[in-house]
């Protein structure tokens, strides 16, 4: 087990944890938190796969991709939070409605 395998496994588990929270909880803010955790998991997998040669410097292309992804994640989170606040203003509830037909 090397460092990169450990962190990529952590990334996969984070992705699954975030995915479960995304579909299990109804409150919008918890869904946005879950999406951020999923994003962090994916970034961990990408960067740990770039670390595969610890003798030399790591591969810089996945680093640049993850940096781009981090900034895009923060702008998507900001937009999602503004949308969630609007949903609460218009429907007076911050949770998605429970599906009665299930």
């Amino acid at each position, binding site marked *: 087990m090397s460092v990169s395998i450990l962190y990529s496994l952590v990334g996969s588990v984070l992705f699954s944890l975030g995915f*479960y929270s995304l579909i299990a909880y109804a409150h919008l803010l918890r869904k946005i938190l879950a999406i951020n955790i999923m994003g962090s998991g994916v970034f961990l997998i990408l960067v740990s796969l770039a670390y595969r040669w610890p003798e030399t410097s790591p591969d810089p292309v996945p*680093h640049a991709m993850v*940096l781009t992804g981090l*900034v895009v994640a923060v702008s998507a989170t*900001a937009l999602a939070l503004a949308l969630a606040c609007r949903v609460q203003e218009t429907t007076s509830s911050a949770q998605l409605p429970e599906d009665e037909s299930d």
Partner: protein
Amino acid sequence: MRPFPAKLIIILLLMALTGLFAWAILSLPLNGTSLRTQVFANIGHSGVSNPVTAVLLNFRGYDTLLEITVLFLAVLGVWSLGTIHIPDLLQPAGLFLMALLRILLPAMMLTAGYLLWAGAHAPGGAFQAGAVLGGAGILLLLTEVRFASTIDWWPLRTLLSAGILVFSGVGLGSMALGGRLLEYPRDWAGILILIIESAATLSIGVTLMVLFVGGKPSKADGTVSMKSTGQREDKT
């Protein structure tokens, strides 16, 4: 909350998914291909010596241009969703925060400037510097409530788009000089990257500050604002 059997099925499926990821990762070859060799072969021509900055601003410059555009689009989206009455959101700060701001704000601006400059040869660059500036802007918003009403001021709004304008200007300019889009002339690559990064830093800092406010600030004399019924009504 879902009924119990559905939750169990979801958990089992997610465990299978995690197992699939683990199997995929563990079955990767020991020495696969990577783009390291190409990057380090061409880094002398890129104008900077930090490989991540070279990839971000030179080899994959188009991705960075689109990323800055995504930030701008987020501001457009947030501003079109509704207005914010600033006194509802921010309150005058206590003495401790004001004293802290006096120490922190110059230090943060200096750190941002250093990160921007050091991005060429050490870890750093436009995004890190812009993020520190954004943090400084958020602190300023939380402390000085009057500052929040200047978000609508036109120089600040110009700074929001400065990053995209400078970046695409440099790209189109290099096309006009006979190359392809974003193909910097070899001797000027370092200087051009610094110019693009400076504009991007200011732009990112102001963008993060504006995203924190979370909406278009309503004017003090009370103009339109969207109420919960979705109809426009004028505040008198």
